[in-house]
């Protein structure tokens, strides 16, 4: 018997009758999808039934909760650069995706989510597990669409993949009614999409703006580059490095831009923003030309906006025209994909070095090291600090691992101190700050980059939000390292309560289960370490274990993350303590 899969292999001259579900799976294969994260249910059963025959081409990872599924797809997309694919059923299955959609939307992660929906004739009748998924997800998707007729499936799926991955990437949700999944229709093959008349993924690049930007850079005495995930999403790491090295300009990153430039690169000045490095924050308000590349001036990066880089001429490179002038007015806005605009700019700029200017960054760095970093990375007494865990981890992984962090103090510490030699190594929930992101995202990252070591750094709060995904690890036998930094508090909120609410610790003392026992229940080995002199060996055991491993490190209860730009303050008012 000819299977539906054979059909896409050869040019189709005649149509053949297949079901909507088969057409959907053909579309996934044609788009080179090999991994799906999902959870079955009533309204998506015809698709799962068809999937039964496709298990050789499509690997389906059964998660424990749809939120875990979508975060895993995000981790997969961020690690691999491919589109993450999620299956969920109607109603609660679909609404459980919302947090992940919002996260993917704000962090520009390419996803195609397929949700089942009740039969078309039941729409609007409050049928079992019916919910208005399209309208619920409109504000948190780049595009969404409901299919009620199987004939639409090939074309809509082609559009979905094109929209998700092109331009500024983002999540797409396709809701398919059960009748369309079951419907037999005349299938004429799959054609991928590369043009939608109402959609311009990349703005037209204007030479005059490249020239204006180059003129500003060439005349600058104290230029400063700040970069974000746009460099990674545009696969423009090499172009970025070439630009940086010719221009000689010091550069700092947002947490989503982290790992686009190796940590040890001589022009890498560190992290921007609320818990970023001292120099990059202060120098933002001292530079004469600020060159922002593929970043969107989030409030956690800019601090108080009316005191942000007011002295500087701002050059803003972005693929999304709506980002230019949104938060910070650009002197020159360079619209376009930085993979294309950076080489154009590099050609026009002079080869330069700024030793005295960079020396100023170094001076701030020395001060930060003395006041903050040495104490954080090399404490001699008291409880283990989060920073020293990251330092030892760096020593053991040598910057080769993918680090997936959750949200909170440990996230800031991981971003500040983790070392990276290659791109797509730092995976974290930046814009949305989704606690519970790291464990499922790490699972997805491992499927996206199976050859790499994946370490999930998670707090004692975040791990409890999606701990059920230990079941996914158990069932798939995947190898990820779970590093819980347990300070027995919801640490970031506690830090704010200490600093800004007179130490009124309101509902931040969170209790933890025995994580090692929980992990053992899932067949995952683990241990807890409390003593400094056991830390390195424990981390080594975790990393060299051949399967997943959970290591809980008890860290200082009331340690704070510094430096810090308090909310409502200018980046130059950054506090070292």
């Amino acid at each position, binding site marked *: 018997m000819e299977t539906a899969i054979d059909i896409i292999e050869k040019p189709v001259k005649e149509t053949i009758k297949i079901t909507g579900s088969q057409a959907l799976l053909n579309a996934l294969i044609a788009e080179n999808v090999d991994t799906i994260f999902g959870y079955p249910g009533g309204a998506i059963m015809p698709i799962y039934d068809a999937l039964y025959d496709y298990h050789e081409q499509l690997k389906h990872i059964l998660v424990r909760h749809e939120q875990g599924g979508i975060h895993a797809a995000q981790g997969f997309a961020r690690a691999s650069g491919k589109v993450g694919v999620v299956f969920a059923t109607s109603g609660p299955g679909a609404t459980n995706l919302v947090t992940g959609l919002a996260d993917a939307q704000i962090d520009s992660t390419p996803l195609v989510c397929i949700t089942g929906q009740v039969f078309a004739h039941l729409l609007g009748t409050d049928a079992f597990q019916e919910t208005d998924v399209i309208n619920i997800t*409109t504000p948190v998707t780049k*595009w969404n669409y409901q299919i009620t007729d199987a004939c639409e499936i090939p074309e809509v799926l082609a559009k979905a993949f094109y929209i998700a991955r092109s331009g500024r990437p983002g999540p797409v949700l396709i809701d398919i009614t059960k009748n369309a999944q079951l419907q037999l229709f005349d299938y004429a093959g799959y054609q991928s999409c590369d043009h939608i*008349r*109402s959609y311009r993924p990349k703005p037209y690049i204007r030479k005059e703006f490249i020239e204006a930007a180059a003129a500003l850079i060439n005349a600058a005495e104290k230029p400063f580059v700040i970069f974000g995930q746009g460099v990674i999403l545009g696969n423009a790491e090499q172009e970025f490095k070439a630009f940086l090295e010719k221009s000689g300009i010091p550069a700092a990153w947002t947490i989503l831009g982290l790992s686009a430039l190796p940590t040890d690169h001589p022009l890498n000045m560190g992290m921007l923003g609320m818990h970023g490095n001292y120099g990059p924050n202060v120098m933002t308000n001292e530079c004469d030309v600020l060159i922002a590349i593929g970043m969107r001036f989030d409030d956690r990066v800019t601090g108080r906006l009316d005191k942000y880089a007011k002295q500087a001429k701002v050059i803003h490179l972005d693929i999304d*025209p709506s980002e230019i002038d949104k938060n910070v007015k650009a*002197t020159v806005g360079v619209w376009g994909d930085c993979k294309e605009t950076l080489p154009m700019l590099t050609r026009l700029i002079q080869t330069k070095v700024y030793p005295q200017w960079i020396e100023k960054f170094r001076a701030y760095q020395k001060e930060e090291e003395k006041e903050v970093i040495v104490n954080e990375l090399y404490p001699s007494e008291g409880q283990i600090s989060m920073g020293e865990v990251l330092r030892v981890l760096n020593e053991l992984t040598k910057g080769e691992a993918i680090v997936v962090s959750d949200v909170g103090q440990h996230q800031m510490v991981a971003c500040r101190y983790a070392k990276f030699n290659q791109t797509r190594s730092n995976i974290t929930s930046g814009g949305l700050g989704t606690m519970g992101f790291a464990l499922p995202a790490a699972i997805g990252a491992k499927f996206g980059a199976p050859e790499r070591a994946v370490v999930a750094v998670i707090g004692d709060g975040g791990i409890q939000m999606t701990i059920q995904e230990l079941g996914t690890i158990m069932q798939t036998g995947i190898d990820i390292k779970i590093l819980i930094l347990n300070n027995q508090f919801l640490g970031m909120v506690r830090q704010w309560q200490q600093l800004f609410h007179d130490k009124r610790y309101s509902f931040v003392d969170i209790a933890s289960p025995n994580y090692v026992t929980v992990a053992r229940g899932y067949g995952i080995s683990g241990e807890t370490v409390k003593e400094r002199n056991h830390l390195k060996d424990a981390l080594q055991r975790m990393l060299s274990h051949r399967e997943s491993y959970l290591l809980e490190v008890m860290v200082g209860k009331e340690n704070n993350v510094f430096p810090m730009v308090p909310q409502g303050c200018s980046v130059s008012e950054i506090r070292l303590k």
Partner: protein
Amino acid sequence: MQKQEFTITVYTENHIGLLNRIAVIFSRRKINIESLNTSPSEVEGIHRFTIVIDELEEVVRKLVRQIEKQVEVLKAYYNTNDEIVWQELALYKVSTDEIAEKVKVERLLREYGARAVVIRKDYTIFETSGHREETNRLIRVLEPYGLIEFVRSARVAIIKASSGFHEKIKEFEATDPSDDLIENEYLGKQQEIFSM
């Protein structure tokens, strides 16, 4: 800068759900839509939205970029009242007896350029169009004569400088953006637009 009336014109695909996608751009920012009209444009398959809001130009400029960013939106423009010609349609229902008795009413209606759409024994419906103040004035004039019901449409507006959408659509349908496609509407207006 002060808040003022802006008319936003949006050309879109004719797809279900697009109205919501555009509406949430306003509601998310707690911006009230004063008037909204949507209907097919002169180009087949393309819908035209006309949205009126009272806002700062800076806010409107950002809103329009957010609207244009939507996958199914072809183009969005914003204009001040000087840059457009606009009208609103108004319908007035009055008692036929009243107007039969008082000839003055008919004279009034003529003065306001109203015409009768329906004349029945019990009521007559007049229609007129104009700016908000004009149609409002007629309400006040008719009230003493027993205005039974009134309804007004959203604003429809023509952009004075626009040359229509027939040419524009060809550019959108082209697979490669042509050189003269003005993607950056602020090109060459740097001095006017940017304060820095």
